[in-house]
């Protein structure tokens, strides 16, 4: 294999990797503030694509349709937490996780019911031929994808590190009791993290739609990959989640290059199992913190 060809695989790997990173960030945000895995995270990815297509077909300009898709999905995330999870928040992690699985099924069937079973797509944000770069062809939409991922990560880092609300979110991820003693409204922090997680998932789902199409059933795979990425990097740590996403995308792409495309989707599962067995705190994460 020539180096240009290899590089092409690397580019492809980072393309999926950016998607996984955004979905993984959603897992990490919710895990951080609640200590639970939100198995509806993949459906936020799906809703981002499907809803943006819906708004676009209504006649909204593309970027406005995308924004509306993100905002609506964030609203779904907020409502899901408020209506389905908060009433049972004292029931323990297992019950809450099962509710997220149920929620994911409901979101999926409702989407199929309302928007139909067919695949749909969006135009590229800036149509045009791929950009040649060092013998590698890079789709313009991939640049959008990377750009949006970088912006999302920077925005999230700024929120976490520099704002009062971000400080409250971090406090919440360490101990709800201690956070409440500081006067932090932990219920609100939890709800907002669901909203943010939904927005990130939606962003990934709609940005990739021009490349892969979308439909009511794309959430499960995206969710699984994002979850594997989050576990690989280290659940609960945003930077680690992004790195986990990129590494997973790269591993998948290289497995196609050197093994066979048959194994591509199994990689995430294999990575998940290996990490859980050998290094449950992830590549970067430290030993898991006590949850209160």
């Amino acid at each position, binding site marked *: 294999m020539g180096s240009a060809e290899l590089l092409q695989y690397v580019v492809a790997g980072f393309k999926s990797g950016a998607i996984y990173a955004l979905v993984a960030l959603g897992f990490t945000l919710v895990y951080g503030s609640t200590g639970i895995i939100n198995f509806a995270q993949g459906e936020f990815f799906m809703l981002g694509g499907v809803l943006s297509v819906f708004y676009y077909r209504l006649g909204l300009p593309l970027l406005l349709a995308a924004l509306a898709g993100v905002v609506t999905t964030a609203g779904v995330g907020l409502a899901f937490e408020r209506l389905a999870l908060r009433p049972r928040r004292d029931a323990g992690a297992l019950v809450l996780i099962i509710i997220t699985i149920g929620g994911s099924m409901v979101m999926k069937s409702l989407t199929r019911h309302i928007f139909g079973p067919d695949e749909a797509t969006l135009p590229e944000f800036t149509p045009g031929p791929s950009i040649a770069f060092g013998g590698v062809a890079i789709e313009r939409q991939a640049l959008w994808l990377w750009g949006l991922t970088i912006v999302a990560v920077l925005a999230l880092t700024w929120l976490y590190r520099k704002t*009062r609300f971000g*400080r409250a979110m971090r*406090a919440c991820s360490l101990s709800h009791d201690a956070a*409440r*003693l*500081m006067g*932090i409204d932990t219920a609100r922090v939890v709800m907002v993290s669901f909203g943010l997680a939904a927005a990130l998932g939606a962003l990934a789902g709609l940005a990739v739609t021009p490349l892969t199409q979308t439909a009511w059933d794309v959430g499960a795979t995206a969710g699984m990959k994002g979850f594997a990425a989050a576990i690989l990097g280290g659940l609960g740590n945003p930077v680690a989640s992004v790195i986990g996403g990129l590494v997973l995308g790269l591993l998948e792409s290289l497995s196609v290059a050197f093994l066979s495309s048959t194994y591509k989707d199994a990689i995430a599962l294999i990575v998940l199992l290996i990490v859980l067995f050998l290094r449950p705190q992830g590549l970067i994460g430290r030993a898991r913190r006590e949850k209160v």
Partner: protein
Amino acid sequence: MTSDSILAVERLSAGYGRVAVLRDVSVDLAAGEMVALIGANGAGKTTLLRSLAGLLKPSGGRVWLEGADVTGMAPERLVRQGMALVPEGRMLFGPMTVTENLLLGAHSRPRRDESVRTDMDRVSALFPVLVERSSQPAATLSGGEQQMLAVGRALMSSPRVLLLDEPSLGLAPKVIADIFRVLKSLRSEGLSILLVEQDARLALRHADRGYVMRTGEIALAGTGAQLLENDDVRHIYLGARHDSRG
């Protein structure tokens, strides 16, 4: 309940699930007073403080703070009413810096409250070591420094009532002396303090009054001096096993 008490606890009951721990506990605290609550391990001291701070919903009884009924109020609201807890085990935000911990202590106050800065300076003056450590993660501090941070963080909410759960636990005598010096200076500035201690002699020597708790009930009450003289207290809490620490 006396009319001048800033905190009055009337026949409070509380527990975990179906396990009752506190039964009819009545305690009060006058403005500017330091009251010690002593008792053996498992007597229910932490349970009482957690109930007062709102982390545990009482199953019966009343809590009055500055004349207002605050029974069952959530902790995030109670801290805005002027009650702060320095919890057992400190519960610091370990990976976050000393400064961030202190800022979180002020989270309950209005965003642009000028006096937050003043209080930050005041805490820095009380615990100068926290200034040296300001950008270090709280978890990297020594035990004594962590306890100072826990007290400083609680003070950042500008409380009128401070609840402390075993601040001396595991600390060297010199550090304990430092912390008690600060507590007494806070009291002289008008702060009301309810102090839980296992080290009965230490607590009673510094406190104006004390309560002795036994299996979820108040067994004895009196001034610090009275309790130190009391035969039961001497026998059970000040015996050979509980040597004075300096």
